[in-house]
């Protein structure tokens, strides 16, 4: 018996999956969820083996929800997204069902999952998330977990990012939030015209910089509007000058 959760904001879209699931008695439907927050809770509670996930949902997208899970389950996307948008993730997700889909297509996706189920899906889902968060639509905001709460940070509120072991500290006016990602990941996914890797351990939002002062011999320091000082290395200074057009 495998556990299944459906996460989709349209009730009828959930009911069609429920209907198709009746042909698969080995799959037990644990819960239906209407948004990513509910989905997150349900996943933690039930530890499902497979989830059916819509992408466009209230508040946080399906991708953003997956990012917040330490060990994401296997995913079959159910979406009306056009094929081009979804193609990029095809290699990593178990499968994706383009709405509307029929029982046959659904059964095929389940069969594909059963085949893969013997192997590890964890890595596949992680790869999927990496490619998802690199798509441009994802770089407008960062979703983090703050204790049991979920915080959505618009990127323009981010002052700077700081490397901290396996995590990255995302500094905002309200303090910092931790995200289990690498600096290289953020350097790639955020807009290079706004976020500059000023130092091996720092990425700074140029819109928050008020001035850049010399500091010790070869180095500089960027002073933010909040008064915070962010280290700038020699190569980082070059990059900042390029972006600011100095």
């Amino acid at each position: 018996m495998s556990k299944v959760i459906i996460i989709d904001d349209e009730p009828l879209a959930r009911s069609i999956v429920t209907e198709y699931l009746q042909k698969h008695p080995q799959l037990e439907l644990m819960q239906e969820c209407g948004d990513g927050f509910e989905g997150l809770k349900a996943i933690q509670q039930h530890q499902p083996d497979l989830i059916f996930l819509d992408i466009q949902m209230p508040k946080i997208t399906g991708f953003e929800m997956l990012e917040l899970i330490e060990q994401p389950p296997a995913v079959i996307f159910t979406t009306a997204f056009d094929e081009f948008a979804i193609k990029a993730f095809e290699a990593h997700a178990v499968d994706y069902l383009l709405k509307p889909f029929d029982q046959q297509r659904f059964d095929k996706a389940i069969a594909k999952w059963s085949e893969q189920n013997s192997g590890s899906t964890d890595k596949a889902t992680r790869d999927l998330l990496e490619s998802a968060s690199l798509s441009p639509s994802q770089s407008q905001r960062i979703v983090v977990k703050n204790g049991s709460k979920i915080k959505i940070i618009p990127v323009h509120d981010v002052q700077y990012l700081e490397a901290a072991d396996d995590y990255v500290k995302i500094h905002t006016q309200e303090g910092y939030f931790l995200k289990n990602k690498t600096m290289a990941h953020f350097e790639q996914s955020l807009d290079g015209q706004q976020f500059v890797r000023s130092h091996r351990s720092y990425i700074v939002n140029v819109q928050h910089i008020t001035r850049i002062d010399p500091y010790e011999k070869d180095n500089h320091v960027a002073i933010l509007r909040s008064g915070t000082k962010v280290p700038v290395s020699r190569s980082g200074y070059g990059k900042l000058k390029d972006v600011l057009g100095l």
Partner: protein
Amino acid sequence: MVADNAMVLNFFGLPWEAAFIDSAISNTLLLLACLLVMNTLRYYLPSGKQYINIFSICLFLTIVWLLLTKLLLRVSLNHYPGYNELLHHSLSIRFSIAFLLLGCVTMISILWYTQQDQKEKDERKTDAEKLAKEAELFKLRQQLQPHFLFNSLNSINALIGSRPEEARKMVQQLSDFLRGTIKKEDTQWVTLQEELQYLQLYLDIEKVRFGNRLNTEIEIDESTKQLKLPALLLQPIVENAIKFGLYDTIGDTVIRLYARKDGDNLVIKVQNPFDPATSSPRQGTGFGLKSVQRRLYLLFARTDLLTTEAKENIFTTVVKIPQGQ
């Protein structure tokens, strides 16, 4: 002109008959030269820098004309006493008059044909612009969100199994809605009442999709019902509000629509809730509103008819439609 010319010649002592023959020959030849110039210019207009060529051609034609005239007059009027003398003396005057006349005809022709040409060009340009505008308006109108269509079909698919009657109803609504987008012309104006009926189809479909989450409140002044607006203008605004409202908040969402008359304008206000903490208002004015803005510009040549405002947790879109078009 022939008569004038003859009178002048008569004045200089030439008999009437000879004067008329002389004048007829020279003027006919001059007329032929003028026609030649005009006809040439009709098909070949010189560009700006070639005026020196035009001058040379005029000069050349005048000389040819003079030689021909002289030859013909000599042959035909030789027998009149003293005629050769008179012809010889009058050559310079004949030359300057002919040159002036040819010059004038050339200038006038150039002006006339240039103007004709410009007019044609302008017409072509306005035609092209009109076509482009129509095509753009058509495209803007056709940009029905494929998401909407696929998700609606998915809902119908789900209803077929559980509630076939409702599925049938939704197919009907979707068809009516799609037919509405196809048949209406962009330049067509409809009354607010008609537009709202059409909008209602769209809202009914969206309500089936989103269930209880989506609620709408429509408040229309009785006086605005017969006011007019371009067809299919409201639907994208409401679609934008629904998406923004539903995807930016959790739980039930109320979309409000108000219409009132303000002076010469029909003013329509659409409101949706949003979460100021997580969305930058820029994102909310996505493609939907941009295309509405563009359409209003193409129709009215104004950019101030669509405005948006984010206040507390309510996003408001206001569209003004000038009446009396």
